[in-house]
């Protein structure tokens, strides 16, 4: 059973998040402030923590510092107001954590929690493989069942990210953050057009499709059955 500790001082937001995560089978423990949150983190040993940036008393980032001092490596998703995003918050992604600016869609939160739960493959690997799909990170070429796939640099990064996170729902905003390196929620059409190009190269006629579009949510790369 996957456990999540949520530290959020706004009861209404906390309720929404708890309800949504609960619907998806997570056990959510809620704390309204940093001290309570740290205590809950120590007692429940969660798999992921969701921490509001602005908390009464201790700041959300200070909570993370306290956790890390205790050698707790639990991945953290920080919720921040737009004006409170600073370099430290922006740097969370580099450290294996993540952040979302308010307001956010609950589906977005869910997808990111799932991504945090599934740590990606060792970043230093030389090649990635998902089913018949292979990606050589040194030679920078791709093939499916021996068929070479010609990719533009951006398409290569897109495919690499999807292969590192195969079987996971990747929202458009996540793809955008990772592949284009901008925190931006693009118009759905826009990412779809880029994804369409990649898809036509990866899934050609007669092959079982590997990239699927989850309506209104994002994309998943799966090995064919």
């Amino acid at each position, binding site marked *: 059973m996957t456990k999540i500790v949520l530290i959020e001082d706004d009861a209404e937001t906390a309720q929404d998040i708890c309800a949504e995560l609960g619907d998806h089978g997570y056990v959510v423990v809620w704390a309204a402030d940093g001290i309570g949150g740290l205590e809950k983190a120590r007692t429940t040993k969660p798999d992921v923590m969701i921490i509001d940036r602005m908390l009464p008393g201790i700041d959300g980032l200070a909570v993370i510092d306290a956790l890390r001092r205790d050698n707790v490596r639990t991945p953290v998703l920080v919720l921040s107001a737009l004006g409170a995003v600073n370099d430290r918050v922006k740097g969370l992604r580099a450290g294996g954590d993540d952040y979302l600016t308010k*307001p956010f869609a609950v589906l977005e939160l869910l997808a990111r929690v799932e991504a945090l739960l599934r740590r990606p493959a060792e970043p230093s690997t030389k090649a990635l493989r998902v089913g018949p799909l292979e990606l050589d990170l040194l030679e920078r070429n791709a093939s499916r069942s021996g068929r070479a796939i010609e990719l533009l640099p951006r398409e290569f990064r897109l495919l690499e990210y999807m292969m590192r996170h195969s079987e996971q729902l990747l929202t458009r905003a996540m793809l955008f953050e990772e592949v284009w390196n901008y925190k931006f929620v693009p118009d759905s059409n826009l990412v779809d057009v880029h994804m369409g190009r990649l898809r036509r190269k990866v899934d050609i006629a007669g092959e079982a499709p590997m990239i699927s579009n989850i309506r209104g949510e994002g994309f998943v790369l799966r090995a064919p059955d």
Partner: protein
Amino acid sequence: MSSARLIDWIWNSTFRYTVALFAAIAATIMLSLVFAYVTTSRELVSLLDGLIIQESDAIVAQSTEGPLTIYEERLRQDPRRYKPTGLFSASGERISGNIVEWPAGLEVDRAPIQVNIDRFGPDWRMIQPSRALARRLADGRIVVVGWSTKDNEQTALVVERGLIFGLLPAFLLGLAASLLFAVRSQRRIREMQLRAADIVAGDLTQRLPIRNSEDPLDKLALIVNGMLEEIQTLVENLAGIGDDIAHDLRTPLARVRIGLERARRTAGSVDDLHGAIDRGISGLDHAISIVNALLRIREIEQTRRLAAFDDVSMAEIIEEVAELYEPFAEEKNLTINVGVKADIIVRGDRDLLFETIANLVDNAVKFTPPGGSVDLLLSSTETERLFRISDTGPGVADNERDLLVQRFYRSDRSRHTKGIGLGLTLVAAIVRLHGFRFDIVPAEGFTAEIAFPS
């Protein structure tokens, strides 16, 4: 007006201030007068003491030789009645002179002191405050030599008169002026109160009255008016967004409803129903995305400053946006041209600036008919650093453009312009947050500019 209110009204801060100021001035004048009086009288006293010591020395000296002519002379030469003089026996009985009796407190052969001397003339008698001393003569008799200090009293009188005839009228004048001033500023404050009551009641178009720009009250009013301007813009922005929500949501929601209703009536198979549900979900997704966009605009408008401002290269952002939209444009048979004459580095939030340019390009790509082009230009002159986007689409009519600009800056409650989505509102909000300027320029197609401060 009741008397209590009248007192309140008079006793307002302006009036109090005037009185306090006046009291301070009066105290200063009085102090300096008293100081002048004390110094003068002290000098006069030592001068007089010197004189009477000299005179008495001369009389004592003469008493060893013969007749007291200096004493007689002193008695005679006193037309202005300055010099009380008298001769007494060793036991203090009066012998001659113009002093009625031994002045109380006076002792023989001591330093001069201040005494009241009872003296007389042929047809008068008076108590005369004087500096005086008594000296024993060679034959045992005692001479009293005095000098009236009425000059001192005259100085005191001058001070007193100065206070009464100078300060009092000035005080009354000041009082009258301060009352007048109080009445005037009270009237202005009353005007402002009335105006402020209107504003509080919801009429945000009202401004505080201003007479001339030198008055401190006017300066305050100007500041308040500036604040009101900003509040009005914000409030009307919110109201405008309220209108937009209703307008933008009605269409997709109505479409979902019609679709679901039709499916319920006509669907012949589970697949038909699934199709209808999928269409319904995507319609609702569209509605949700509008709500999210609105919430985001509000978030940006409410954010005062961003914690993570950085040096951002606009050239890089523009090239990356162009690359991002390239496949989308290609599908529509459009060309995106990027003209970067000089890179522009601005202080800002990289993600939001990307979003701004992306929104403008998105808008252009959506509304430009196939075969057209979208031009992105970055230019920098000595006076201006500018990003300009123009397309070959239908653009906006002159009157619509005015309304759009008003909607962003003066926030007129103009109708939501058809075809111009929330994208431009978001652009305006982000540009405003950064302190840049956003303009829609009159041109063939849609042309807009963002000016960065140099």
